[in-house]
């Protein structure tokens, strides 16, 4: 066997070292990419906190929820019941929906059913025309940050008038209202309640022949970007909406119960990544429930 020169052996050793170095480099690059991806995915939905556009609904004051609540499901009527003493009873539910906690919400509806109707709401309702397959923009008077107060004081950009004025112009067959989320944080409920009632009063005056239906404010998910919105407060305000509807002879739709889990959180399958807005199919649940109710 011929003797291999020492220089050749050294060269081969060097080559092996370089190869090992290359392999290590490739491994490090691949590993760092994986780490970046995992960091990215773990931060999904963890967008910075917001405010909510504290609107001009009320000047100041903190909305505190004093009553702890036991979130018990009931077979009918409002699913979540506060332990606070409440004057409301289920007997006022003659014109409210009747959802059973845990039932799988229907997503079937007939779009033509809503052709003469008007939907008034905040950013959540803009999804009714942003997502394909639901309503036309003309059927929706909604804007990012809209509150009950702004619905009769602020012009909606794509309408050129306030929501109430738009309703008066259109004279819809039915009016569906879902407002309040933007005024839940940093405002006291009395001011919000006052403006909500005022909105209903103005709409009833502007559209005397319309069938008006108020929709409950929806909850936030377990993981959400809105630390200032407390689902206890949401339920409290929904009770107010329901009792007001009962008092004024209007319909009430308890969407909250339909899309929340047993602890009252927005079900992830219906919630957008921010934990408050809607995924596309959530509008199908809403329209299905409204058609059933009306």
């Amino acid at each position, binding site marked *: 066997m011929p003797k291999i020169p020492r220089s050749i052996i050294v060269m081969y050793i060097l080559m092996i070292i370089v190869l090992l170095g290359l392999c290590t480099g490739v491994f490090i690059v691949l590993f760092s990419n994986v780490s970046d991806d995992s960091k990215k995915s773990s931060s999904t939905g963890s967008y910075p906190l917001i*405010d909510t556009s504290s609107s001009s609904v009320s000047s100041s004051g903190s909305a505190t929820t004093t009553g702890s609540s036991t979130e018990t499901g009931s077979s009918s009527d409002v699913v979540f019941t506060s332990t606070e003493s409440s004057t409301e009873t289920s007997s006022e539910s003659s014109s409210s929906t009747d959802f059973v906690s845990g039932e799988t919400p229907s997503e079937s509806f007939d779009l033509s059913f809503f052709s003469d109707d008007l939907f008034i709401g905040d950013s959540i309702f803009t999804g009714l025309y942003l997502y394909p397959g639901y309503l036309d923009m003309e059927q929706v008077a909604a804007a*990012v940050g809209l509150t009950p107060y702004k619905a009769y004081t602020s012009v909606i950009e794509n309408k050129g008038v306030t929501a109430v004025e738009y309703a008066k112009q259109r004279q819809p067959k039915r009016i569906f209202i879902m407002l309040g989320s933007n005024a839940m944080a940093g405002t006291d409920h009395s001011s919000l309640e006052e403006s909500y009632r005022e909105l209903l009063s103005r709409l009833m005056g502007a559209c005397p022949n319309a069938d008006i239906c108020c929709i409950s404010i929806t909850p936030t998910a377990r993981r959400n970007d809105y630390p200032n919105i407390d689902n206890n407060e949401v339920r409290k305000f929904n009770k107010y909406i329901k009792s007001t509807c009962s008092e004024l002879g209007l319909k009430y739709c308890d969407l909250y119960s339909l899309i929340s889990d047993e602890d009252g959180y927005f079900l992830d399958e219906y919630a957008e990544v921010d934990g408050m807005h809607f*995924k596309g199919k959530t509008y199908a649940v809403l329209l299905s429930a409204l058609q059933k109710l009306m």
Partner: protein
Amino acid sequence: MKKVLLSVITAALVCGLCGCGSSTSGSSNNSTSSVSTSTLSAKEKAEKLLGAVEFPSMVEVTADKLDIYFGIAENDVKEYSVYICGSAAMPDEFGIFVAKDADTAAKIKTAVEKRIEAQKKTYSDYKPDEMYKIDDSFIDVNGNTVCYAICADNAKAASILK
């Protein structure tokens, strides 16, 4: 003589290996990205971006809504793909328009600038913490093609859409 020849061959092998190793990884990435971004259609670029950056629920803007959201007529563009946030929870959106001519491309750029300004106005009060996406947004005009993005990684969006 044999020793010298073997040494030279081995040295050449080592150097070649080092050179190829480093240049291969770098140049292949560059060529891949340049080929992919230059040859993809507007829709393909949009789909690539959707897979590359974290977005909320996005919906494609249909031809009948181009006018509503941008004031752009369908026949102004030869090809386009635009996505907006369906839930309105966040200001995320992006688009690529291939205009029919240079004048129309300039018109589209102005429309997109107006749109971004409107988003800025809306979200500055509503979600100030999302404003970094708008502040960092871009509009690019290359010939008759206009593209823009408002998202969590506008640099990556630019590298895909441009």
